[in-house]
C-alpha cells in the first residue's frame, strides 16, 4: 500500500533517452540533474520562484506527455515534468544546443567581458557556462558591435556595490530580496537593454541579508566592499565551517589565503540555513585581525605591577599558583563564544581543578529560574529526540515568540518563519512590546505586552481562542525572557497545558554548547543536575575523581557579588564583554573594578579588553578560525567544524586550561578539542531524572505608567557595537539607525516632529536620539540596547527599566 502511494507521487519521463522518475511538480531542469545533465541557467535558483527570464535553459520537448510536442524550445526552469514527457537537452538536441548558444551569445552582447579584473572571474557561472555552452567566438565583437556602458560601480548600500554593465538581468538579487528576505529595497528599473538594478531614491539597500545577493549573482555585477578586488578565487583555500555569531548554527564557507580569511560565504545546509546567512555571518570576520589581538601569554610583573609577556609554561605556573592560593574561592565566567569542547574543558576545570560549581556562561540578565528551566526543559534536547527543529518551524501551524526578535537575534529562524508564513500561512504571534518590521515580514501579529508582564501574557495564551495554541504549535523563547521573573515558568506551563512544543533560543554561538557541557552552577556535563547525588557519582566515576562539589554554585550575579565583598578571591574569565559584566545589576563599576584588581584574575581572551587589563594572567585564545570545534545550535544540533588557519600564537581554551590544570597537579585529562569531544561522548548524557520545571510565580507588576513614566523595551539588534563585528566599517554602516520608538499616543505628548531628537532618560543616565512612531504597547518606549556609539544598556538602563522621554531642546 505504502509502495503504491509513493509510486503515484512519482512522474516518469525520458530525458536524453534516459528514463527517470521524479516527484510530481519537479521542474525539468532539476529532473535533468537526476540523469546527470546540467542544463545551463542564470535566473533559475532552486530556492526562488521560477521566472523564466534569461531563457538560457531552453530544451526541446518532442512530447509533452500527451503525445504532442512543443513547437518551440521550452524553458526547462519553468516547465514541470509530466508523465511520459520526452525531453531533449543540449546533449541530444541540435535545436536545444543552438537555442542555448544563441542565448549565451546574446547575454555576452552587453557584457563587458572584463573577466581579468572581475572578482567573479574563476568562479563565474557566466564565464563557466559561456565556455561549456557558448560559441567560441563573439560575432557581436567581430561585427563591430557597440556595448552599453555605465559609470561603475554604484553603491546600493554601504556594503554592496553594483557594476551595472556586468549584470545579465536575471533578477536573482531582486527576487531574493523580495521573496526570501522580505526587503524589496532593490528593484529592476528602466527597460530593454538599459534595464538595471536600482534602489529607491535616497533609500539604500539596508537589508540584514543583502550579502546573499552577492553570492547568488551569476556574474560579477554585485560585489561587497569587503571583498572587492581583494583576491582571486583560485588563490583561495575553502573550508566549510559554522557561523560563530549567533545560535543558528548556519553553515558557512571560509575562504582564506596566506593565513588571512578573505571572505565568508553561505554554506548549503537544507536542514539549517538552506543557502542563506546574515550579513553579520558573512562580513564580521575581521575582529581577530585587529591590532589588539593577543599573541603572547602575559603575567603581571610582581615588581612593576604591569603586564609583561611571559612564556606559556610561566603563565601556566603563575595561573596555577594563583588559583591554588584562592583555594575554592574561585568563580568562572566562560562567556558565550566557546565551542562545546572548550566549554567542556571549562566545566571540568571548574569541578576538577577549582573544585567549585561557581561557573556560569550567562553574562546578561539571568536568574535561578532560568537555570532551573534550562536544566529541566532545554538541556539534552536535540533533533531526533523531540526537540524543535528548523523543519518544525516550517511545518508548524502556529508559532509564538516570546522575548525573541528573530530578525535581530537569530537570522536563520527569521528566514524560516517567513518562508513558513509565505508558503502556507503559518500564524506567528509575538509576545513583545513592539510590532517590528521583522514581525510584519513574517506575517506576524503583536500581542502587545509591557516589559515585565510577559509572564502573565504568556499564561493568558493558554485560553486565547485566537492564538489557539495546540500540539501543532511551537513556542520560541529568547534568552531575554530570563530577565522577567516567572516568564520561563509560564512558558513551560503553557507548553504543558497546550501540547505546543517549546524551544529556547539564545543569542551567542557558544551558549547552547555551554549549557550541554554544564557551564552552569546547577548543571554538570551531559545535563547532570548538581543536586542529584547519583549524577555526581556517575560523573565522578567517568572522570575518575573522588567527587564533584555537591553544592549548587554561584551564578554570574553571585560570583560578581562575592567578588565585590571579598567572598571570592579569584576569577577565571573568557569571552565576556567587560562592559556587560560591569553593567550587570546596575552596580557602580568602580567597586567591581576595585574588587577585580584585588582578586586574582585569569583571562582567556582573543583580543585585549578591560578584563585583560585587570588580569594577573592573560592567555591568548584561538578564534574559531584557528581551531576545530563544535557549536551546538538552538535546536541542540551538533555543528562541528574544522580548523581554517594554523596560527601557533594562540591556543584553544581546552589546551590552556589543561596547561594550568597540569601545573596545579590536577589534570583535566584532555588537551585538544578532539580529545575533549571523545571524552564528552564517553561521558554521555544523563539518563537519570531531570530537575523539576521551575514554577516561579510572576509578580506581574510593572513600575511604569505613573507620572508619565514609561517602561523601556530594548534588545540588541543584529548589527551593533559587538566586538566581534569590529573591523568592517562597511558592515557597521548598514546597521539600523538608532531611534527612540514610541506609539502615536506617547508621540503626541512630546510636541516634536517625527525624526527630531528627544531625550531618553533612565536609571543610568540619558541619551538624545531621533524619535520615531511605531507599533508599541501603551506605556512602553523602545530603543536599541547596543547601537554603535549609543549603547542604551550602558547609558540609560536595561530592558524593563522605568524611563522618561522628553521632546524639545535639552
Amino acid at each position, binding site marked *: 500500500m505504502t509502495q503504491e502511494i509513493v509510486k503515484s507521487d512519482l512522474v516518469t519521463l525520458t530525458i536524453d533517452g534516459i528514463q527517470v522518475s521524479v516527484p510530481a511538480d519537479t521542474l525539468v531542469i532539476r529532473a535533468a540533474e537526476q540523469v546527470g545533465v546540467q542544463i545551463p541557467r542564470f535566473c533559475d535558483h532552486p530556492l526562488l520562484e*521560477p*521566472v*523564466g*527570464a*534569461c*531563457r*538560457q535553459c*531552453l530544451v526541446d520537448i518532442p512530447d509533452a506527455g500527451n503525445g504532442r510536442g512543443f*513547437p*518551440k*524550445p521550452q524553458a526547462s526552469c*519553468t516547465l514541470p515534468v509530466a508523465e511520459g514527457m520526452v525531453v531533449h537537452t543540449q546533449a541530444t538536441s541540435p535545436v536545444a544546443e*543552438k*537555442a542555448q548558444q*544563441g*542565448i549565451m*551569445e*546574446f*547575454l555576452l*552582447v*552587453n557584457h563587458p567581458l572584463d573577466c581579468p579584473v572581475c572578482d567573479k572571474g574563476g568562479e563565474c557561472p557566466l564565464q563557466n557556462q559561456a565556455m561549456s555552452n557558448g560559441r567560441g567566438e563573439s*560575432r*557581436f565583437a567581430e*561585427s*563591430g*558591435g*557597440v556595448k*552599453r556602458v555605465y559609470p561603475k560601480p554604484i553603491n546600493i548600500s554601504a556594503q554592496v556595490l553594483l557594476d551595472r554593465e556586468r549584470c*545579465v*538581468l536575471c533578477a536573482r538579487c531582486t527576487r531574493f530580496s523580495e521573496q526570501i528576505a522580505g526587503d524589496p529595497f532593490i*528593484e*529592476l528599473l*528602466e*527597460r*530593454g*537593454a*538599459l*534595464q538595471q538594478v536600482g534602489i529607491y531614491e535616497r533609500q539604500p539597500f539596508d537589508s540584514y541579508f543583502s550579502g546573499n545577493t552577492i553570492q547568488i549573482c551569476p556574474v560579477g555585477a554585485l560585489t561587497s566592499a569587503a571583498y572587492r578586488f581583494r583576491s582571486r578565487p583560485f588563490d583561495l583555500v575553502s573550508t566549510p565551517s559554522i557561523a560563530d555569531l549567533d545560535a543558528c548554527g548556519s553553515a558557512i564557507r571560509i575562504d582564506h589565503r596566506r593565513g588571512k580569511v578573505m571572505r565568508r560565504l553561505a554554506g548549503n545546509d537544507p536542514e539549517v540555513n538552506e543557502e542563506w546567512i546574515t550579513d553579520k555571518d558573512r562580513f564580521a570576520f575581521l575582529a581577530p585581525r585587529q591590532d589588539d589581538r593577543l599573541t603572547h601569554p602575559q603575567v603581571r610583573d610582581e615588581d612593576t605591577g604591569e603586564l609583561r609577556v611571559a612564556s606559556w609554561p610561566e603563565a601556566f605556573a603563575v595561573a596555577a599558583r594563583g588559583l591554588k592560593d584562592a583555594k575554592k574561592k574561585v568563580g568562572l565566567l566562560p562567556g558565550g563564544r566557546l565551542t562545546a569542547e572548550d566549554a567542556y574543558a571549562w566545566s571540568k576545570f571548574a569541578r576538577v581543578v577549582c573544585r567549585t560549581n561557581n561557573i556560569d556562561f550567562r553574562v546578561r540578565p539571568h536568574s535561578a529560574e532560568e537555570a532551573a528551566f534550562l536544566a529541566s526543559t532545554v538541556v539534552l534536547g536535540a533533533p531526533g529526540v523531540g526537540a524543535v527543529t528548523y523543519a518544525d518551524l516550517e511545518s508548524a501551524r502556529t508559532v509564538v515568540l516570546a522575548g525573541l526578535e528573530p530578525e535581530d537575534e537569530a537570522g536563520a529562524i527569521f528566514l524560516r518563519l517567513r518562508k513558513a508564513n509565505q508558503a502556507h500561512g503559518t500564524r506567528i504571534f509575538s509576545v513583545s512590546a513592539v510590532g517590528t518590521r521583522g514581525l510584519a515580514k513574517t506575517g506576524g501579529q503583536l500581542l502587545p505586552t509591557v516589559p515585565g508582564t510577559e509572564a502573565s501574557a504568556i499564561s493568558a495564551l493558554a485560553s486565547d481562542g485566537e492564538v489557539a495554541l495546540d500540539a501543532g504549535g511551537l513556542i520560541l523563547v529568547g534568552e531575554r525572557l530570563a530577565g522577567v521573573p516567572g516568564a520561563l515558568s509560564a512558558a513551560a506551563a503553557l507548553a504543558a497545558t497546550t501540547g505546543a512544543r517549546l524551544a529556547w533560543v539564545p543569542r551567542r554561538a557558544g551558549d547552547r554548547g555551554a549549557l550541554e557541557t554544564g557551564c552552569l552552577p546547577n548543571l554538570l556535563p551531559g545535563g547532570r543536575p548538581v543536586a542529584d547525588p547519583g549524577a555526581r557519582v556517575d560523573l565522578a566515576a567517568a572522570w575518575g575523581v573522588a567527587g564533584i562539589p555537591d553544592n549548587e554554585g554561584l551564578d554570574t550575579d553571585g560570583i560578581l557579588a562575592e567578588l565585590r565583598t571579598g567572598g571570592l578571591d579569584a576569577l577565571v574569565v573568557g569571552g565576556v564583554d567587560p562592559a556587560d559584566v560591569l553593567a550587570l545589576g546596575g552596580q557602580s563599576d568602580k567597586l567591581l573594578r576595585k574588587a577585580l584588581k584585588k582578586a586574582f584574575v585569569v583571562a582567556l581572551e582573543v583580543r585585549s579588553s578591560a578584563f585583560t587589563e585587570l588580569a594577573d594572567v592573560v592567555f591568548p585564545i584561538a578564534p574559531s578560525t584557528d581551531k576545530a570545534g563544535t557549536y551546538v545550535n538552538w535546536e541542540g544540533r551538533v555543528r562541528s567544524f574544522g580548523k581554517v588557519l594554523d596560527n601557533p600564537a594562540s591556543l584553544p581554551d581546552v589546551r590552556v586550561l589543561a596547561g594550568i590544570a597540569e601545573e596545579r597537579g590536577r589534570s583535566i585529562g584532555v588537551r585538544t578539542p578532539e580529545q575533549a569531544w571523545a571524552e564528552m561522548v564517553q561521558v554521555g548524557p544523563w539518563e537519570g531524572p531531570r530537575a523539576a520545571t521551575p514554577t516561579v510565580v510572576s509578580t506581574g507588576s510593572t513600575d511604569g505608567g505613573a507620572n508619565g513614566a514609561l517602561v523601556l523595551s530594548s534588545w540588541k539588534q543584529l548589527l551593533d557595537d559587538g566586538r566581534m563585528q569590529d573591523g568592517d566599517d562597511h558592515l557597521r554602516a548598514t546597521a539600523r539607525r538608532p531611534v527612540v520608538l514610541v506609539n502615536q499616543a506617547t508621540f503626541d505628548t512630546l510636541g516634536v516632529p517625527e525624526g527630531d531628537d528627544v531625550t531618553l532618560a533612565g536609571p543610568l543616565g540619558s541619551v538624545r536620539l531621533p524619535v520615531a512612531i511605531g507599533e508599541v504597547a501603551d506605556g512602553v518606549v523602545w530603543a536599541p540596547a547596543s547601537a554603535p556609539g549609543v549603547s542604551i544598556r550602558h547609558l540609560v538602563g536595561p530592558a524593563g527599566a522605568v524611563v522618561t522621554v522628553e521632546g524639545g531642546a535639552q
Partner: protein
Amino acid sequence: MTDVLTPVLTADWGTPESWKLNVYEAAGGYGALKKALGMAPDDIITAVKDSGLRGRGGAGFPTGMKWSFIPQDASTEAGGKPKYLVVNADESEPGTCKDIPLMMATPHTLVEGVIISSYAIRANTAFIYIRGEVLHVIRRVQAAVSEAYLAGHLGKNIHGSGYDLDVVVHAGAGAYICGEETALLEGLEGRRGQPRLRPPFPAVAGLYASPTVINNVESIASVPSIIGNGAAWFSSMGTEKSKGFGIFSLSGHVNVPGQYEAPLGITLRQLIDLAGGIRTGAGGQQMGLKFWTPGGSSTPILTQAHLDVPLDFEGVGEAGSMLGTRALQIFDETTCVVRAVLRWTEFYKHESCGKCTPCREGTWWLTQTLTRLENGEGSAEDLDLLLDQCDNILGRSFCALGDGATSPITSSIQYFRDEYLAHLEHGGCPFDPMASTAFATVGANQ
C-alpha cells in the same frame, strides 16, 4: 464599390457629437444592453460563441470560448473569487489605428460592450486600460463612463436587473509591452509592465490573482451588435473560419488613408481601390505597391504578389504572415525596405521590456547590424547573421513581442534580399529618402 463595406462600429463616426450618450442612444445605442440584461449570462456567451467572433487584438482567439474558460462554480477556489473584465486599449503597434479612433468617435459602443461582456462573465468590476499617450481619448472614454453611470447603465442594480458593475478607466504609462495581456495586468496592479509566467492563465488567476478576461477594444465593441442583431447576422459576414466584420486601417502611400470597416476576407486590392489607389508620385506618375504589412509591423511583410490574398486569419496565414490587427501599412516603390525595417527594429529595441535575454539583447544587436547594412558598411554574410539572430530570438523569447521583432527582418530578406545587397554595392542607401515621405506626394519637385 463601396457596397463591400459593412459599417457597424464605424457607422456613426461621421455623426455630429457621435461620442455623446444622447446621440448614441438616438441611434439605438444601449438597446442591446437592455436585451442582454433580459438574457441568462450563459446565453450571451453562447451567442458570442455562435457568432464566431474571434479576438480583434491580433491573435484571433475565439472570444466566446475565452469567456467560457472563466470558472463559475463558486464552490471551487478560483470560481469563488471575483471575476474581472479587462479591455486592452493599449493600442501601440506601429500601423495599428482602430481602437483609438473608435474610442474617440463612439466610446459608448465600447462601454455598452463592456457592460454586456461583464454581465456575461459575471464580473462586477471592469477595467479599460488605455494607452497613456492618448490623453484626449482617455478623457473621452472617462466622460462616456460618467454619462453611463448617470444614465443608470453602470453602477448598482443596473436598470433593475440586480446586476452591479463598476468601470475603471486606467491610463497606461506608455509602454508597448503593456499591450501584452499579462504585462497589462502587471501595470494595472501598479507594477512594472513585464509579462507574467503562464500558467496560471489569466482566465484562472489574472488580475489580483482572480479569473480575468482580457479582450481587445474592437472585440468588446462588436458584442452589442452581435446581441442586438443576433449571432447569425454576424456570422453571415466574413469567411468560413473568420466570421464577421473588422476595421481595416490603411496608412502610408494610399491616396485616402483611414479606417475601412469590411467583412473579413476582403482583399488588399479592394481596399486600395476604396482608398483611392496608391498615391501619385512626385512627378505625377502613378506609383506601384512595393510591400505592405497585413497587421502591423509585427506581421511579416507581403508584396504585390499578395494583393488578392483574402484578409482573414487563414488566408493571411497561408500567405506566410498574420492577419494581426488589420493594420495595413502601404509602401510604394519609393520606399527603401532596409530603412523601413531598421526603423521598426529601432522601435522594438526601444520598447523591449528587458525581461528576457533574446528580445532585450537581440534587438540591441539587430539594430546595429541593420544600421551597418543601411550605411553600406556590412557584408553579404551580415544577412545570414541577421537571419541567424532572428532564428535565435523567434520562439526563444518570453512573450510574443520578441517574435514580432523578427518578422519584418526575415520577411524583408525573403522578398528583398537584392535590395539589401544593393546597399553594399552602392555604399549606402540607393534610394532618395525624401521621395518616400508624404511631402513628396504633392508638388515636391516644383
